[in-house]
């Protein structure tokens, strides 16, 4: 089958590609997302079928795998409630601080979100790596910054802006480009009443890839491997607050400054091996406290 054979046209095409490569993102963003979605659309049915095959070859990493459906569902409900409880506790602490200051009025924080289940249809390797493609988009109300969770309360990332009508990109929490994340270490409850007595500790985590995040602490007193780490970052949506990032994997001293501590947090689920996620889609007009969820310069924090 004859194809364009002129060497001149080939050179022009290569020069055009070089020019496109040199253009800043702002020059391409108005049209490249739509074009990419159109190019990807014919591949979606095949990719969905192959994703099913992939899950048969290598079982996805989902919480409570192997348990009976009823038990699994009950545990996920429990985790979801635990997540809500953690989020409310954080909110109560915040409100208590604000009451002390009486700096101004803020509307009450209601739920403000609803869940949308999505299938991961794309998570190829190559460069740039790491983003997950899911099969819901702006048509289903998904917007930038919406938190993405699994298992009721395990946060695995957030929606990047630039999605299409039926396709969105998820930035995994362990992606180094996510920037620093404010989190709260909550020691494991010990015995009865331990929940009330626990002392939480703030920490700023830096994603390291491979499901790990690393943070520095002034003191390691009260932090032990196995402690839960919750998201408590004002830059994220209210629906993400209190969601579980993972557990403290190891605790040690900083080589550069032995007076300070270093903790390694491991996410409980591998974002690269999840098949279904739940996006906490924002409901307009509900429960969006002023000043929360706007990250300004995004990950350049």
């Amino acid at each position, binding site marked *: *089958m*004859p*194809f*364009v*054979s002129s060497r001149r046209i*080939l050179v022009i*095409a*290569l020069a055009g*590609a070089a020019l*496109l*490569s*040199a253009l*800043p*993102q702002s020059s*391409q*963003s108005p049209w*490249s*997302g739509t*074009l*990419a979605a159109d*190019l990807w659309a014919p*591949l979606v049915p*095949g990719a*969905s079928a*192959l994703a099913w*095959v*992939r*899950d048969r*070859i*290598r079982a996805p990493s989902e919480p409570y795998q192997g348990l009976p459906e009823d038990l699994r569902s009950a545990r996920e409900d429990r985790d979801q409630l635990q997540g809500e409880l953690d989020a409310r506790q954080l909110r109560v602490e915040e409100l208590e601080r604000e009451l002390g200051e009486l700096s101004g009025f803020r509307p009450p924080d209601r739920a403000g979100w609803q869940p949308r289940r999505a299938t991961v249809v*794309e*998570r*190829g*390797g*190559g*460069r*740039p*790596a*790491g*983003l997950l*493609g899911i099969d819901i988009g702006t048509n289903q109300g998904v*917007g*930038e*910054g919406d938190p993405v969770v699994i298992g009721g309360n395990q946060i695995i990332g*957030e929606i*990047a*802006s*630039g999605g299409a009508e039926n396709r969105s*990109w998820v*930035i995994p929490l362990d992606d*180094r*480009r*996510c920037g620093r994340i404010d989190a709260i270490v909550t020691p494991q409850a010990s015995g009865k009443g331990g929940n009330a007595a626990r002392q939480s500790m703030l920490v700023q985590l830096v994603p390291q*890839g491979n499901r790990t995040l690393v943070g520095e602490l002034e003191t390691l007193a009260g932090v032990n491997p196995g402690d839960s780490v919750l998201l408590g970052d004002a830059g994220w949506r209210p629906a993400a607050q209190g969601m579980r990032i993972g557990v403290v994997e190891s605790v040690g001293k900083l080589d550069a400054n032995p007076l300070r501590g270093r903790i390694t947090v491991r996410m409980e689920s591998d974002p690269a091996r999840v098949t279904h996620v739940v996006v906490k889609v924002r409901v307009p007009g509900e429960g969006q406290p002023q000043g929360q969820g*706007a*990250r*300004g310069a*995004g*990950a*350049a924090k």
Partner: protein
Amino acid sequence: MRWWIFIPVMALVLSLDAALMPAFAIGGHVPQLWPLLLAFVSLYASRSAAIWAAMILGFWLDAMHPALGVGIDAPRAVVVFGPHVLACAAGAWCVLETRAWLYRRNVLTVAFSTFNCALLASLAFIAIAGIRGLYADPFPLWGGGSGGAAVGSDVVDALYSAVIAILPAWGLQSTLTVWGFATAGPRFAGGNRMNRGND
């Protein structure tokens, strides 16, 4: 080369890369099949057809791998067309330059060319991303970490892709006559080549 065969095979390969190949990931290294397809085409097709195939493939790869930019509420996924197009062209060029001294009808040769193709494409991509990072991108296109670490990781990816490519390469070699390549056939000779059109 018969483009009506290349395009569906490319679609299949890209779907496999996006959906199935992560199942074979080892230690975060995911094998890819697109270097195999590109190496196979570059081994047998005419020079211009191979470069065109690389550019088409690169265009789709760009569409599948958005970069991260600065957004208002969250980092923005922006599809940047161009880097993979040039990277794939570089990978194809590498195979085109080496194919003259290779015994092509061997599966291991295709695997070796797959490694070369993937490696040079990766180096070209990281070089382009490095240049873009100086003025255009808030985050490097290769993801997190240093460029050197990205090259090291991609060398392993290329090796893994080449190993995985051996079996599908055998399948592609057995379909050689179907592709209508300019430099391959059951009884390839200059006379045959003249009748294949300038593809």
